[in-house]
């Protein structure tokens, strides 16, 4: 996966949506034209303590003059969203990477079905704008705990009848049932889901009859197996033959960095795709949420994935 430039951008505007969501418009003080992106892409936001958080771009991909992100304040999160809410006011500086896309619209699709839960609506805000321009039919199911979820008016404006709201509270309370509410699988109908794990899991189960390359998930957290016990393993560097030992409590990424390898990484949770690396000769235990089954045959994510015994890396 590729390295990306980091830009010192300015918050051009900040406003609050319902549900504790802050919407930020970001501009570059020197560049009128920002790096291009496609709907579903995310940027890295760098926090002052060096941590990195990823946010989907939720504006119009056709507008290269600004980026828009939406950040839900998570009181019990890892602290990134609180920092954003407390510090990124209009005029503040924000260190933002060029966009990367792991969750893209399939250009050949004849129809798109979007399922969003909570703040997982953000990539779809960009997708529906793009799909409206191409005229490809789409449906959006938007599940929220709120009777009036964030971006309610905007979605009504952009989607008309194409959006169905599933509020978990209020008089219009309506529950999303992945088995009943998803359409039948059909050639050319692509399904995209982004939201909390219980939603993505229910959609994954309900969509098990769909062709696997027609179903796409954007995960903010990898679906870790709680019973996984990390074991130590060995690494051989293909170019030099150098051998490294990865203890059970360390990642391959950490050990390679200690050995002087310069490797990019970002989320270090197995969801962003920054630390992708080729491998040969080894039984890799894939624990990421980005690589396709096909890619897993010779690619791995060094931050979370491990090997049974030994692996040779293309480094």
């Amino acid at each position, binding site marked *: 996966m*590729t*390295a*990306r*430039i*980091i*830009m*010192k951008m300015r918050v051009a505007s900040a406003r609050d949506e319902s549900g504790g969501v802050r919407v930020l418009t970001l501009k570059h003080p020197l560049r009128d034209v920002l*790096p291009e992106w496609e709907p579903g892409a995310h940027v890295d936001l760098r926090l002052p303590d060096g941590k990195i958080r990823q946010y989907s771009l939720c504006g119009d991909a056709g507008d290269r003059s600004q980026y828009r992100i939406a950040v839900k304040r998570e009181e019990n999160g890892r602290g990134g969203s609180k920092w954003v809410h407390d510090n990124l006011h209009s005029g503040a500086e924000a*260190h933002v*990477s060029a966009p990367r896309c792991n969750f893209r619209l399939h250009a050949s699709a004849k129809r798109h079905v979007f399922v969003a839960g909570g703040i997982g609506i953000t990539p779809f805000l960009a997708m529906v704008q793009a799909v409206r321009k191409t005229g490809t039919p789409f449906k959006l199911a938007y599940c929220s705990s709120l009777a009036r979820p964030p971006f309610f008016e905007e979605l009504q404006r952009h989607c008309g009848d194409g959006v169905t709201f599933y509020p978990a509270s209020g008089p219009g309370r309506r529950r999303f049932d992945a088995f009943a509410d998803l359409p039948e699988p059909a050639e050319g109908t692509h399904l995209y889901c982004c939201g909390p794990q219980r939603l993505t899991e229910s959609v994954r189960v309900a969509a098990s009859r769909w062709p696997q390359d027609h179903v796409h998930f954007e995960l903010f957290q990898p679906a870790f197996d709680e019973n996984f016990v990390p074991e130590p393993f060995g690494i051989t560097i293909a170019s030099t033959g150098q051998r490294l030992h990865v203890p059970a409590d360390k990642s391959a990424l950490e050990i390679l960095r200690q050995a*002087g390898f*310069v490797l*990019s990484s970002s989320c270090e949770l197995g969801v962003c795709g920054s630390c992708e690396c080729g491998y040969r000769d080894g039984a890799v235990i894939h624990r990421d949420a980005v690589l396709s089954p096909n890619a897993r045959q010779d690619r791995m994510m060094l931050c979370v994935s491990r090997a049974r015994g030994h692996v040779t890396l293309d480094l």
Partner: protein
Amino acid sequence: MPWSGTLEFIHIAPAASYEMEELKEARLIPGRGIEGDRYFNGTGTYSPKPGVREVTLIEMEVLEALARNDPPVQDKPVVLAPADHRRNLTTRGVPLNHLSGKRFRVGETILKGGRLNFPCKYLEEILGLPVFLPLYNRSGLNCWIEKGGIIRQGDAIEPIDL
């Protein structure tokens, strides 16, 4: 071979992968680098790697050749702006490929040429531009600072060791 050149641009990046920022003047500290730059701070992409890169230089003439696709190694010209090549100093009229192991003056400071810079895939990735091949053998020079001081845009660059 007598030559005489000028310093056209000064750029630093505060940390690895950050955009380069243009400076009108900068302070060079021997043994460290350019004040505020990622290699001065030890946070550059290649900081853990051996080799000196206190100051990195590239020729403006190379950027102009890329923009003409000369020689034609690419399908089309590559426009590499001085803020994008990620070297610190952009020079004109300075034969950088001949200055490995040689000392030369930049304004009031003295640099000593280390190894020739090698184009990296990292630069290609970060720019999204095919620059590896066009920069091959003309990717600039990595230098030591032998005498520190202030450099300014437009400073003269003159040889010491011929």
